[in-house]
């Protein structure tokens, strides 16, 4: 097998609630995980097992206390736990993609601009970026009449599909997916499965959370059980 592109070693994450009596909540205890190019690892476990916390840590949205998260970018390894903000920003631009559970709505920005933005930030021409955005929005069945509108007034499922289009616009080598199919109908769920399989084929390393067993079976190469870690700790 090829070398991994994502390597998590001995990762610990604890929340300390300073304004609530200093309560500490350990969520990740000694996580080890390696993900290879073209592989999809599904995080599995009951609510509260730390799936989303791990995924957010992999995007440097959460800051772990101990351990490392190495991501390969070109021929360089960058550790998200110790990297400088500008290194992480650079990594997010080129290498590391993330589809969150909910779209964070930006007031007044049209759907087409939201979806094409990651590509424009990479220096792709506006025309090419929009072309890709149109393709993704069409595949995800967002009616063309809505492309020029800001998604603030869209339904939950429509916002989620805009969010997915946004996350898949760049061919990131590492892709993190937090329940991308949660609020979708069967047809759109299948489109997302197709997008994930295509990303695997081009060599993306994927880590995701999928509650839908049918989706999980189609995309997962491996299931990473979070409960086991909690029990063992």
């Amino acid at each position, binding site marked *: 097998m090829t070398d991994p592109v994502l390597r998590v070693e001995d990762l610990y994450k604890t929340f300390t609630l300073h304004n609530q009596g200093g309560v500490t909540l350990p969520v990740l205890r000694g996580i080890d995980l390696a993900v290879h190019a073209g592989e999809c690892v599904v995080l599995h476990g009951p609510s509260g097992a730390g799936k989303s916390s791990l995924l957010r840590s992999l995007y440097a949205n959460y800051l772990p206390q101990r351990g490392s998260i190495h991501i390969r970018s070109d021929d360089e390894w960058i550790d998200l736990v110790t990297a400088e903000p500008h290194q992480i920003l650079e990594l997010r631009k080129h290498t590391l993609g993330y589809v969150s559970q909910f779209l964070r709505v930006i007031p007044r*920005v049209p759907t087409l601009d939201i979806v094409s933005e990651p590509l424009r930030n990479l220096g792709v021409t506006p025309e090419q970026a929009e072309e890709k955005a149109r393709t993704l929005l069409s595949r995800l069945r967002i009616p063309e009449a809505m492309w020029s509108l800001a998604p603030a007034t869209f339904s939950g499922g429509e916002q989620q599909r805009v969010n997915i289009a946004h996350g898949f616009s760049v061919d990131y080598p590492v892709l993190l997916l937090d329940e991308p199919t949660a609020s979708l109908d069967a047809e759109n769920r299948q489109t997302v499965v197709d997008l994930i399989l295509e990303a695997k084929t081009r060599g993306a390393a994927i880590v995701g959370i999928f509650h839908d067993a049918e989706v999980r079976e189609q995309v997962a190469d491996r299931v990473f059980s979070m409960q086991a870690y909690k029990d063992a700790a």
Partner: protein
Amino acid sequence: MTTPRQPLMQVNDISKMYGGRVGCRNVDFDLYSGEVLGIVGESGSGKTTLLNCLSARLEPTSGSVKYRDRTGDIINIYQAPESRRRMLTRTDWGIVHQNPRDGLRMRVSAGANVGERLMAVGERHYGGIRETATDWLDRVEISDDRIDDKPITFSGGMQQRLQIARNLVSGPRLVFMDEPTGGLDVSVQARLLDLLRRLVTDLGLSAIIVTHDLAVVRLLAHRLIVMRQGEVVEHGLTDQVLDDPQHPYTQLLVSSVLQP
């Protein structure tokens, strides 16, 4: 990532004392080209003092601010001769004040407010100046039939947009903003935020924005500095600081925001 980048601005251990009182203390950071840095904290935390120290308007008691200009020269702001500093603030920097009255000339026309910045950097051709001014008013969504009106006849939101046009017309590389959306209605704020966001991305600007509004930095800033009582208590990626705050004060700040 393959090209190691040089910081645009290096801030080294800046402190500003007002007699025995602390304005800001031991502030250290690097700003990279194309980055937007947010400085947050409650009133009196030293945000504006720090911004003034960074933008060559208030000499710090100790520490240094170094800036890399277009030619790659490093300028030590408070060591450089006054003329050099003045040239820098005119050509490389922009300053957007919280109160548009501090950044605009209220009794000359909107067009002149924008045009005179071009003349300050050596533009002489009247037709060209007027054309560029009109173009910039259009970019900040001020209709061209208002070009000859004075800013005192504008609404607060329009004045703020005019101030932004006046600052950006000369093509600065770094813009300092002090509460740019303060005192505006939420709908006007949203419009201004969207405009700023677009301009920063399209022009590849770097910016340092002082605000007490966490929603503003969430939208605009890549990185965040949290200040309390003159000191930096937390520093990091914007979304990391807001979603996983480490310091007790940041946790308090984030949990105190009212969700509409």
